[in-house]
């Protein structure tokens, strides 16, 4: 802010160079740090570049020793075969449907309880909060076996509902929504009450519109989590018509006879691409959620 003021024509050129050096320092920081950081960045993104490159290689070139870094004979054959052989469209549709249902459920149920815990006074509030938060520490595999027995006895193993129901209400969402709603001013709610607004109307008409940033965060995190979830769908989905994308990919890659890396890499691209796009578009919300709760 001072640069424009001090670099008036009356200043000497010596002062100017000092200021310029300082400005470079202020705009760029420590130049030597870009080297290790770029190296690390390269390490971090290399798997993605390798995947992209491999997915466009003909199968014969993938096993070439030494490998080509970029496809020399680029082809769409892997993608074409992926769409042809695996029941790919239905897996994609299943992934989308499950993720959307899980996300919608979490947004609604977690914000409802989150609001009650943040702004309403009621008997048992502390107990509910403690109980919900305590389960954040429970390992997934502790609940896995009884959950499987439960869902299978509810006859849900043959339907998408079995992939959705157990994930509709997650403690993480309550934690996130409660933290966010706590920061909204009480006066807003008091004023609405004075105005004669009912408690549920306050939630629906006043609180919910104000929690849009937190809802966006929770929505993206839940969607990504559901999209990437694979162990539960792998165990519960009984036939191909319920497979989600990661399940299809996991089964294809673990099959003894299936060693077609080209198709697997193309499949990986298709699994990763939608979430990468979602993330790049909404990364601010995503980052905000991680930063406020420390969980993903």
């Amino acid at each position, binding site marked *: 802010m001072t640069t424009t003021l001090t670099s008036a024509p009356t200043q000497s050129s010596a002062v100017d160079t000092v200021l310029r050096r300082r400005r470079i320092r202020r705009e*760029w*920081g420590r130049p030597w*740090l870009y080297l290790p*950081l770029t190296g690390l*960045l390269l390490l971090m993104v*290399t*798997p*993605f570049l390798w*995947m992209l490159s491999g997915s466009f290689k003909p199968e014969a070139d*993938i*096993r*070439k*020793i*030494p*490998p080509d870094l970029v496809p020399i004979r680029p082809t769409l054959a892997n993608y074409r075969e992926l769409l042809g052989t695996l029941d790919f469209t239905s897996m994609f549709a299943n992934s989308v449907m499950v993720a959307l249902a899980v996300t919608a459920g979490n947004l*609604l*149920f977690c914000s409802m*309880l989150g*609001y*009650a*815990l943040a702004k*309403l*006074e009621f008997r048992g509030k502390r107990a*509910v909060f403690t109980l919900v938060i305590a389960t954040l*520490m*429970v*390992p997934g595999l*502790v609940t*896995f*076996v*009884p959950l499987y*027995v439960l869902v299978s*006895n509810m006859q849900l193993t043959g339907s998408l509902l079995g992939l959705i129901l*157990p994930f509709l*209400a997650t*403690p993480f969402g*309550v934690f996130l929504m409660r933290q966010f709603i706590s920061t909204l001013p009480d006066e*807003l709610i*008091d*004023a*609405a009450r*004075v105005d004669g607004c009912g*408690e*549920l109307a306050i*939630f629906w*008409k006043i609180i919910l519109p104000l929690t849009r940033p937190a809802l966006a965060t929770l929505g993206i995190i839940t969607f990504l989590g559901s999209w990437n979830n*694979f*162990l539960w769908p792998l165990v519960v989905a009984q036939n191909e018509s319920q497979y989600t994308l*990661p399940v299809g*990919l*996991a089964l294809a*890659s673990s099959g003894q006879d299936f060693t077609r*890396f080209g198709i697997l*890499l193309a499949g*990986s*691209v298709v*699994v990763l691409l939608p979430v*990468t796009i979602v993330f790049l578009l909404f*990364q601010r919300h995503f980052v905000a959620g991680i930063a406020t709760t*420390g969980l993903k």
Partner: protein
Amino acid sequence: MTTMPTSTIAGQGTKERDAAGPQSAARRDSSPRRTAQGRQTRAAWSLAAPFLALFLAFMLLPVVWSMLMSLTDTKSADLRTPLSVSFTGFDNYIRLFQDPQFFTALQNTAVFVLVGLPLTLAAGLAAAVALDRGIRRFRAVFRVGFYLPVITSVVAVAVVWKTLLEPQAGLVNTVLAWFGIDGPAWLADTRFALPVMILMAVWRNLGTVMIIMLAGLQSVPQSLMEAAELDGAGAWQRFWRVTFPLLRPALLLTAVTTGIGYLQFFDEPFVMTDGGPLDSTLSATLYAYKQFGNGNYDMASAAGYVVFVLIIALTVLQFRVLRDKD
């Protein structure tokens, strides 16, 4: 139409409260407060009901059920009649600790946590400090790049890493060959399989730590840093004496959540090695899953609970070591 009047009244309300002081008298009124209390209680429970119903059925019930199951002889044959099993006390836990394979699994999990957790925290912290204090340009590019692995599907990533680590046609050994190094068959070698899993976990989780540390760094007041600089503290001293202590809450948060995740170390070995070669990447949760797969629901639940106890122990330990000392 509906929101406009409320917002004006909200504005007035704020003004009135400001004038009356922070604790306005209207709130202290006891009789209207009691009816309002009842209204709030009813509203709160109806808002909580849908979540709690799902939570009870799909979280709390399984947690308790799992505990009971670990004290019985439940097998997959009892799937349809889960109540017709007999109690066996702590037999499952005794059998668990007599199983050398479970010991191997615990050992691998311990190595994974003890090596992987500090590595991840250090790498994430270093990346955050470099981005926050070191450089000014292209921060977003680095941040997104470092964070990208966090959002990936482990299945897709495992496929890619498998091809990267291919002994002959993989990129890793190709690059090593440029420097005259003959790279091993990473995932088929008992010496390298677990270290590779650790590096992959660091790669996948560094971004989460970095984001939380970046948020923590932003809360370090600039005036404090300037004061330290005026007092003659070097960059290194400023970091360890000023920044690091203020980062303690963020560090605790990441250490606890990453530790909880790492003790449940499962995805990477499940999709890449299935615990092999020779159980060298078998983790405690993978052991539990394999017991489930073999139909030993009792042993799977018991192993799950052992991991649960370990998680609680590690969390308590981290709170002891890292909490504010004042």
